[in-house]
């Protein structure tokens, strides 16, 4: 197991990460989703060892930061929204300076990815746009044979053509089955296509944590007349929304459940799941 979080908790002022548990095996892409301020970045900082959890256990490739910090950091590639690199240095200088700390750093690999991503190694880091800075972080993260890529909301800053390239690189990256990716985002449309596993957090707590197929099997989006929706068992319904085109409801689903033939039944996208779960009644927080 490449990543194991067990009951991780962390207080950050008034905000709290609450008992998050998740396991990520090799060869998987995990989507970390949730609304703004849900704790995604804080959780990533905990996984990166930048924040120390108040409680719980964090293992990366079976190792803990307390015992094997250097080994773990050699395994992790990072793309954060923070501007990590030296502003006054060129991309190549940054690569050489910080690559020197990594056991398996390859300047050739970094240059190959920079070329692929359209980055000029002689440009200063401060001259790059936000998206280019993230591209460089991504190229650097790929240059030292990291086993676990941790990417904090990079896609929102990428143009549509690079987003395709980005997901293609991620697929290549995990293809040999020994590496994994954690991709935090609130743009879920791409995750529908690429993620194997979803961890959805809200207000610092886990809303669901499951592989994407299981998620698809667990929820249905029903559309139809309001009175038909109202006939559904209350405990099954997560949230109902009325619009000009009819009433829609997200419901818990089991294989044995059957629905009124006049209702349209669809597998919800991650975006729809997030939308409805975020809007659900407050009394039914955890599932």
């Amino acid at each position, binding site marked *: 197991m490449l990543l194991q979080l067990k009951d991780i908790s962390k207080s950050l002022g008034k905000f709290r990460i609450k008992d998050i548990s998740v396991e990520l095996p090799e060869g998987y892409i995990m989507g970390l989703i949730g609304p703004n301020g849900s704790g995604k970045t804080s959780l990533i*900082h905990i996984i990166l060892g*930048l924040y120390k959890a108040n409680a719980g256990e964090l293992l990366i490739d079976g190792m803990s930061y307390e015992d094997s*910090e*250097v080994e773990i*950091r050699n395994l992790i590639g*990072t793309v954060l929204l923070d501007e990590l690199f*030296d502003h006054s240095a060129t991309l190549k200088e940054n690569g050489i300076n910080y690559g020197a700390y*990594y056991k398996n750093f390859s300047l050739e690999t970094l240059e190959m990815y920079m070329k692929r991503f359209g980055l000029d190694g002689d440009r200063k880091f401060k001259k790059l746009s936000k998206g280019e800075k993230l591209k460089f972080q991504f190229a650097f993260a790929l240059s030292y044979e990291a086993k676990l890529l941790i990417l904090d909301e990079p896609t929102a800053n990428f143009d549509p053509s690079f987003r395709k390239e980005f997901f293609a690189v991620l697929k290549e990256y995990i293809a040999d089955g020994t590496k994994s990716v954690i991709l935090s985002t609130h743009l879920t449309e791409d995750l529908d296509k690429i993620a194997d596993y979803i961890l959805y957090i809200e207000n610092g707590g886990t809303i669901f944590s499951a592989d994407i197929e299981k998620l698809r099997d667990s929820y249905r989006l029903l559309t139809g007349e309001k009175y038909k929706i109202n006939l559904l068992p209350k405990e099954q319904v997560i949230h109902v929304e009325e619009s000009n085109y009819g009433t829609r409801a997200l419901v818990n689903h089991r294989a044995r459940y059957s629905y009124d033939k006049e209702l349209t039944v669809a597998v919800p996208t991650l975006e729809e799941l997030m939308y409805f779960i975020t809007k659900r009644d407050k009394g039914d927080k955890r599932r």
Partner: protein
Amino acid sequence: MMGRVIKDYFAAFRWGNFKEKVAHFLYLVVYFATILPAVSGFFDKWEYALVYFLMMIPTIHILNSGALHIMKMPKMMYVVPLTKDMKREYIVKSAIFRICFCSLLGMICTLPLVLLGICRVITYVVMVYDYVTFALLLCGMNERYGIEERDAWQEARSDCRGLIQGIDMIITVISLFGIACMLSWDGGMVNVYANLLFIIPAILFQLPLTIKHMTYWNTAVEKALSYERSFDK
């Protein structure tokens, strides 16, 4: 590691950093470099002006260094594979290099005054002591001083560190300025009693305050070791 420390020290002296971290007290530099010496008569003779500027160069450098080289690592250094001991080594060596470089610059700037023989030996000692004290005070800060939401004083007020730094810094600046005034007004022939005016406060106040400040050294290093405490509070 030392190469990296030296490289990072000089890399911080860039225009963007000055604009971001030093500009808010630029008016002080302008005041000390132009208005104050003009009204205080430091521009009346070239010897006076030389004394004044040779004392201002290390003082301003130490002030700049205090703003540019706060005790924390570059963000990427918290992410790369380094053990806690290696990070500690980087932080401590960075601080020591800062103190040594600032003190050395102070000594170099004092040397022409020594060669010109324009003051007593004890005056040079107090001057260099002031530079070292100033460097020690400023390099032990986890936060940049000045007009900032989470400035050094607020950050350290719980353990009185900010107060001690503040009082000690004020005494140091007054001492340096006072020595410069005396050297100029007396044409370098400062009498023994006037020297005592600066030596006694240095021993009675500056020294114990500086020693007390240094007892917070480990606290400052521990804080700098943590990304969470350095950047996300």
